[in-house]
């Protein structure tokens, strides 16, 4: 059955972060995940002028009922999809469907995760008592956390396509260049740059510019991944409001239209990953591009979940932005860099901006800022519009290269 084309059936009308991102603990605060949610929802409500009481649908990774209760609202659309860092792109897809079908007019997608302050407390999702039959057959073999698994994909990519660790290192270097333009980025500046206005952040000994050699020489986590191939672990929250077109046009904020949306999955356990150099983003983006009537060649910029350099490279290939096996070239050749043909991860990415564990919300916040042209409006103190983009493909990846959500976002001219 052919689906109704939902393209442009709703818009993201505002985006905001929580107030105390990064390592608030080091400034003497211990901010909970719930606080990040509530701060972000309050901020996006104030930014858009949409009262919290107007929210009819709540989308989050398992938090929706608690959030609604805490806010004192009674939504009539509740979504708790929790499939890792791509959950938020999938939430926007679901919100688009809920709004375009007339069930609700206004939805909030919210994220809060004190990934650093409450590290070791365990992430969202899962929670059933019994163990997955796949996990029973991998638990004996000494892998710990995401980097230990993603490294297998990078090795296979290097084998299959002749890519090198140096090739991937360029992704870290270019992404750090973007972070140096974002005062909110954890790696904005290093501790020696006393003249740099740091605001409330702590100067970071690992921050500031890095070279390919720095990436290669960094502490090894899981070969071939060194520390600088890996995303950060910080505290972060964010929220976007999605609304019906009539409402979107009536607001003081600029709408960013959802031209296309798609989601897909390949596996849960990496044991079931057929092709270690491919993800379901090929399918989720094909769905999103088709809905939008646009293709990769039409994109002005991209926001790509960069949990690891290899994630960004493979995803760029899946999104059709680079040939198979050559995703890293976008960074190595400068296309993705400031001033390049196709800016990617303009906030500094999960590698150098912030990454709480499930980073997909920050892809949305940054895509909204860039496309709405409101970066200089100073949402939460961010200054300086980085690109002049009207189209952006956003792709979240969850789990161990398991699940993907793709959005094609466009702004009014």
């Amino acid at each position: 059955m052919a689906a109704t084309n939902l393209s442009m059936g709703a818009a993201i009308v505002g985006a905001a972060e929580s107030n105390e991102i990064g390592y608030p603990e080091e400034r003497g605060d211990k901010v909970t995940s719930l606080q990040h949610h509530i701060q972000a929802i309050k901020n996006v409500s104030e930014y858009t002028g949409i009262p919290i009481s107007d929210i009819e649908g709540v989308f989050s990774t398992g938090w929706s009922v608690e959030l609604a209760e805490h806010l004192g609202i009674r939504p009539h659309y509740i979504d708790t999809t929790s499939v890792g860092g791509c959950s938020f792109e999938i939430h926007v897809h679901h919100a688009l469907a809920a709004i375009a079908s007339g069930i609700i007019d206004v939805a909030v997608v919210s994220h809060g995760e004190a990934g650093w302050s409450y590290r070791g407390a365990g992430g969202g999702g899962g929670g059933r008592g019994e163990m997955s039959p796949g996990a029973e057959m991998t638990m004996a073999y000494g892998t710990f956390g995401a980097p230990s698994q993603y490294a297998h994909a990078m090795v296979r990519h290097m084998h299959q396509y002749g890519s090198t660790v140096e090739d991937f290192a360029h992704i870290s270097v270019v992404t750090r260049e973007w972070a140096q333009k974002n005062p909110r980025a954890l790696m904005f500046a290093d501790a020696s740059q006393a003249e740099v206005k740091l605001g409330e952040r702590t100067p970071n000994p690992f921050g500031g510019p890095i070279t390919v050699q720095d990436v290669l020489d960094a502490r090894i986590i899981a070969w071939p991944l060194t520390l600088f191939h890996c995303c950060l672990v910080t505290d972060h929250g964010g929220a976007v409001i999605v609304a019906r077109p009539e409402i979107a046009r009536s607001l003081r904020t600029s709408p960013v239209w959802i031209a296309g949306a798609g989601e897909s999955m390949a596996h849960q356990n990496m044991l079931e990953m057929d092709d270690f150099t491919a993800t379901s983003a090929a399918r989720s983006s094909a769905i999103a591009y088709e809905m939008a009537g646009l293709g990769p060649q039409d994109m002005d910029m991209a926001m790509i979940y960069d949990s690891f350099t290899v994630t960004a490279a493979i995803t760029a290939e899946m999104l059709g932005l680079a040939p198979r096996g050559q995703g890293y070239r976008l960074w190595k050749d400068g296309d993705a860099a400031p001033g390049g043909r196709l800016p990617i991860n303009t906030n500094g990415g999960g590698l150098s901006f912030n990454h709480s564990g499930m980073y997909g919300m920050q892809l949305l916040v940054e895509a909204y800022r860039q496309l709405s042209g409101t970066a200089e409006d100073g949402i939460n103190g961010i200054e300086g519009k980085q690109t002049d983009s009207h189209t952006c493909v956003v792709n979240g990846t969850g789990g161990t290269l398991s699940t993907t959500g793709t959005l094609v976002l466009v702004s009014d001219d």
Partner: protein
Amino acid sequence: MAYNKPIPRKGQHNQPFWDGAKEGKLMLPRCTLCGKVHWYPRLICPSCHSTDLEWIEGSGEGRLHTFAVQHRAFGGWAEEVPYVTAYIDLNEGDRMMTVLRGVDPNKPEDIKIGAKVKVEFDQADDDTHIPFWRVVEE
């Protein structure tokens, strides 16, 4: 020394595997309808969705599909870093995970994807003989 690393949990769906492992056999689930071997053991054939499954004794041989070298670990595994984790393409089809033996974790450039591997079992407790794979000469 007692085995100090995580020991897999067992259930009805994979008990024949652990029974075979005790005798040094690599038992694999196969669908009687479509004939395909699948790994991990499950309740239904992931290819044709038949629930009529049987167990066969595998060859215990395969090829290295991909690997990584773990430098950061916890519990019993922390004492063994660096070590190589890997995915193995079974001769019978589908793929297993393992800690790979017969390779130098300090020379990952020398580890050959596609290398021939054979299974061996380590006794972890009375009920559990854990399969590990080793790179062998052609």
